[in-house]
């Protein structure tokens, strides 16, 4: 079973590059350009992982994580935050962020893949 991913980022270029990269690893990728769009997708889709940015217009990543976590129907959806605000050493993670994993955008793409695999294996 391929890993189903909802990729949420307001940076269109980053989103399309990341989508291509994930798909080349065999993932099935849905895209959303902000938190509200993501929530709308989650109404009828049930991905394994939501990969989202933190700083987005409208509903930001932190609030998106909170809304997904508050929804019992989406309890098994893993949350990965991928943001430029987070440093490679893990600093800069906002407090009370309800995510399963936080990664810096500087992180090598292979590390993101490794994290996704370890999260979905559980």
């Amino acid at each position: 079973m391929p890993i189903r991913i909802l990729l949420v980022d307001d940076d269109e270029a980053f989103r399309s590059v990341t989508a291509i990269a994930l798909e080349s690893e065999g993932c099935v990728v849905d895209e959303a350009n902000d938190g509200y769009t993501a929530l709308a997708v989650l109404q009828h889709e049930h991905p394994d992982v939501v990969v989202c940015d933190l700083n987005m217009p409208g509903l930001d990543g932190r609030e998106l994580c909170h809304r997904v976590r508050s929804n019992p129907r989406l309890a098994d959806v893993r949350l990965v935050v991928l943001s430029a605000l987070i440093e490679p050493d893990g600093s800069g993670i906002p407090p009370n962020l309800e995510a399963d994993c936080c990664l810096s955008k500087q992180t090598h793409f292979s590390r993101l893949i490794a994290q996704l695999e370890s999260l979905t294996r559980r």
Partner: protein
Amino acid sequence: MTTNTTSQSTNVREAFARAGRFRLRDRLFLASALLSTSILLIAAWVINNQVVRQARQQVQTEVQDLLPVYNAVWEENARSLATLGQTMANSPNVKIIFGNERAARDRETIREMIADFGGDLASRVDLVLITDGAGKITFAEMRGNDAPPVTDLTAARAVADSQQQRQCFAIFGGRLFQLSLTPILLQSGSDEYQNTLAVLGTGLELSRAVAGEIRNRVHSDVVFLTGERIYASSLAPEAEAGVAQAVTAPEINRADPARPVEVRVGGQPNLAFSRQLPGFDGQRVGQVVVLRSLAGAGRLFRSISNLLLLLWTVSIAAAFAFSFLIARRITRPMGALMAGTREYGRGNYDYEIKADTHGELGELAGAFDQMRRSLKQTQAELLKRERLATIGQMAGSIVHDLRNPLATISTAAEMLNRAGLAPERRQTLLESQLRASQRMHEMLRGLLDFTRGSYNLELEPHSLGSLVERAVKGIGTNAARASIVIETDVAADLFVRADAGQLRRVFENLLTNAVQAMPDGGRVAITAIREGDHARIDVADDGPGIPAEIRERLFEPFVSHGKLGGTGLGLAIAQSIVEAHGGSIGLDPAATRGAKFFITLPLDSV
């Protein structure tokens, strides 16, 4: 009615408020004027009580002291009358003339005879009379009145019986006399040894002249009266007319020199006492009222009052001058202090307070200056710290914002490195890389423009409508995707001298902000109108509006909220571009919903 009352009470309140806003100088003046007035009023009261009372007591003492003088006058007159009477009674001529019935009727003869006695008194004697032994008046010569007013004098009978000279007061023909009755043996008929016992009366009228004489001696006015009738006085005729009621008051009857009473005569205060004028049988015939003027005390008080009034005027003037000087000494440095605080309030910490004064105000001015220097230093430190913080914030923001396109580029590069990638995917990755690097260029250019703070504007006349149109077209795709309708209403005759590229950035920035604020769609309205020699462009959206907490600092760098791939410099750059064009940009605070930005630009005059 109600309105009227309300406005009146408002007026009263305003008046009180105004009264409470008295200047320092007025307050000082009022206080010192009040002080000197009260001191002088107290002084006047004390002087009136002490000095005038003392003066009055002195007058009272004088009244008591003048009694012996007064008595002496009467006694002197009585003695003179008695002497004259005795002399006449001893004179053979008098005895013969009055004894001869015919001669006694010849007034001319008698007048000559009296005149023969010569001397001061003889000329002054007002009444000469002869009674027989039974007291029947046989002859009377009264100055200024021929007819004998009375026929009987009972007192004369007693004198004839006792053969003793007697003194008394008596009334004849409505005139009051001091009278001396002396027994005399008249030689009547041809027989020169036929003697008849008779009584000779010599009298002095208590006239105005006598009153004047007494006044000269005792320095007090005298009034002769019986009951309510005044016979004579030393008062001026007009004062005499009004004095009757005052001097006939019952308390004056009882007043002796030890207990004088105060009466007003002709408006002037007097101390008065009365003495009886006894008749022959000791019965009261009349009385004399002695009036000692208190005008001296009043005059003293008046002169002191005048002096006090002068002192009051001088002290009020002095209080005015004093308060003026003090106020100047205080208000001028205070004015300097206030001007200083106003300048500091405006943030001008280079203003030095020039309060050339010493004492507390000088110290205060010194303290102000110290505060100024400390504020200036603090401000400088704050500025430095703020600048450092801004630089830090800016650096952080730039780092984060560059990471997004960098991540795009590096991930794409990593993917491009892999074999077996479909050509269209390879194409997408390359395009994404290109877009990301373009965005980085844009960011860096904006940053550079902003930090340089100046723009090399290429000014050319442009139709505002076309500039707006181009900006709308540029943002069009993004807007359409977010279901946002952009409406423009720009007057056709608006032309501005502008750098089209730079101004387009401003419009695009505002439109991008509006579009990003409404992810669920909405409407953006751009309107432009002429306002004098400026064009005013409004950009209004239906979104949630600008949060109150950042409205004030909206145009500062890195304040913008929920930015989409921005540097946090968008509005700051927009502001500097508009200002470089001689215009202004701001957030319309009157907007009721959404956000409404306005831009003004000078119109091209050609």
